[in-house]
């Protein structure tokens, strides 16, 4: 059974095409929320630990905003890198049926995923280069020769992944 048949009929026209800015933004929002949830969870765990260690002198810590932002960015960096290097998709990508692949159409390597993750965090506005790009590529995609595309399959295969010439 080909992978194409696991794609819903109405979605087959999108399968394999590069995703646009709407879905990618939505996916990033979800991923950002995931990171916020992780940081929040970490904060709660930190508070719980402190409460258990010093219940009498307990008070909610008030970390500086930049520290929280750094933590959030760190979580996102690890989260993006691990997701793109293992499954090719974050949870946001999964919800929006997106997959990140390298210039060969394969799953990204760990270094490649780390570089792309850092690039995305350093210049998130680069995503919106896809709005004006004639090939719907973000700035990161254009420089790193990666691709974010629609993929309704549960596990992207080489047969449905992009070619080396158009990513």
């Amino acid at each position, binding site marked *: *059974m080909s992978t194409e*048949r*696991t*794609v*819903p*009929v*109405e*979605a087959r*026209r*999108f399968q*394999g*095409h*590069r*995703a*646009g*800015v*709407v*879905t990618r933004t*939505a996916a990033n929002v979800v991923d950002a929320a995931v990171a916020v949830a992780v940081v929040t969870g970490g904060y709660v765990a930190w508070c719980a630990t402190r409460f258990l260690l010093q219940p009498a002198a307990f008070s909610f810590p008030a970390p500086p905003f930049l520290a929280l932002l750094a933590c959030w960015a760190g979580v996102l960096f690890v989260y993006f890198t691990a997701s793109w290097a293992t499954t090719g998709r974050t949870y946001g990508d*999964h*919800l*929006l*049926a997106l997959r990140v692949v390298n210039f060969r*159409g394969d799953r990204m390597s760990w270094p490649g995923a780390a570089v792309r993750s850092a690039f995305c965090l350093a210049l998130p506005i680069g995503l919106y280069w896809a*709005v*004006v*790009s*004639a*090939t*719907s590529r973000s700035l990161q995609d254009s420089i790193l020769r990666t*691709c974010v*595309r*629609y993929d*309704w399959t549960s596990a992207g295969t080489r047969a*449905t*992944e*992009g*070619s080396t*010439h*158009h*990513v």
Partner: protein
Amino acid sequence: MPDPAARQSVIVVDLPAPVASPDITDTVADTVRACFGLVSIALGVALRATGDPPATARGRRSLMSTVDVADLVVGTAWGAARLSGRLAASATRVVVPVCVALSRPPLVPRRMQPENGARAIVDRWQRDRPEAVRSLGSWSATALPGAVTAALNQVDMERMVRIVLDHVDLDIVVAEVVQQLDLNRIVSTVTDGVDLTAAVERVLADLELDQIVATAVAGVDLDAAVSRALEHLDIDAVAAQLLARLDLTQIVLDQVDLLRIADYVIDGIDLPEIIRDSTGSVASEAVQVMRLQGAEGDVAVARAVDRLLHRRRHRRTNSLPEQAAAPSDELGDHL
């Protein structure tokens, strides 16, 4: 394979072993009885050939029929023979001692006795008899076939066979023969000595099977035959027996391209939809709608921007090589 002539001569030469010589009077009596028996049979055959005498105009038969006359003659001869036999037996009682005395006269040297001469004659004949019999065998081998052929030409064989068959109960004869035959041994001997496969192949090669089958089919009302057969046939039982012998699963696996059929069926149904409905996967209906709306939002934004930028060509968003080679690989063309 021995020469037929030689075989025939062997039959003649291969005489039975000599038996004790019977008394001459008994031999003569037996010979006479045999001759009368032959005469009786011959007369019976001859009279049967002539048929019964016709009745007179008044419906009365003649005073003495031919059979009666023949029996009178033969009976007279039989009486004369019996009388002659008795006289000869009586005379033998007297003559034999005289002959014995004459064959061994007293005071005559043994070498010169008549018995010695008779014995010499007998011995010579016994020595020469095998050669004579062999000569007869050679002669019979050459002469008998022609004689038998000539004799058979004079015989109405079909009539004789009919007569024989009228007097023979073939059922009893065949049953007796079959009972005495060891059919298993005969069949095994035949099968051991014959290459049945080669024989059947030769027969099949010589037969015009197509013509035979065509002739048979032309002469048979197949519809009626099949109807009659079906009336007497328990099709359910036959089918059940047949199915019990078959491994249908293995046959299907060997003969059917299941993968091709599965592909054909899957092409005709929306399998992902079925899977989603049955398993309740993560990709629920709401997620599906969100994905599709996001994708269509991408297309709408891209189209609007392209319009603002006065792009003549749509975006090239296809990342699949086979579709990229197609004339229209822009996502906008599909929408």
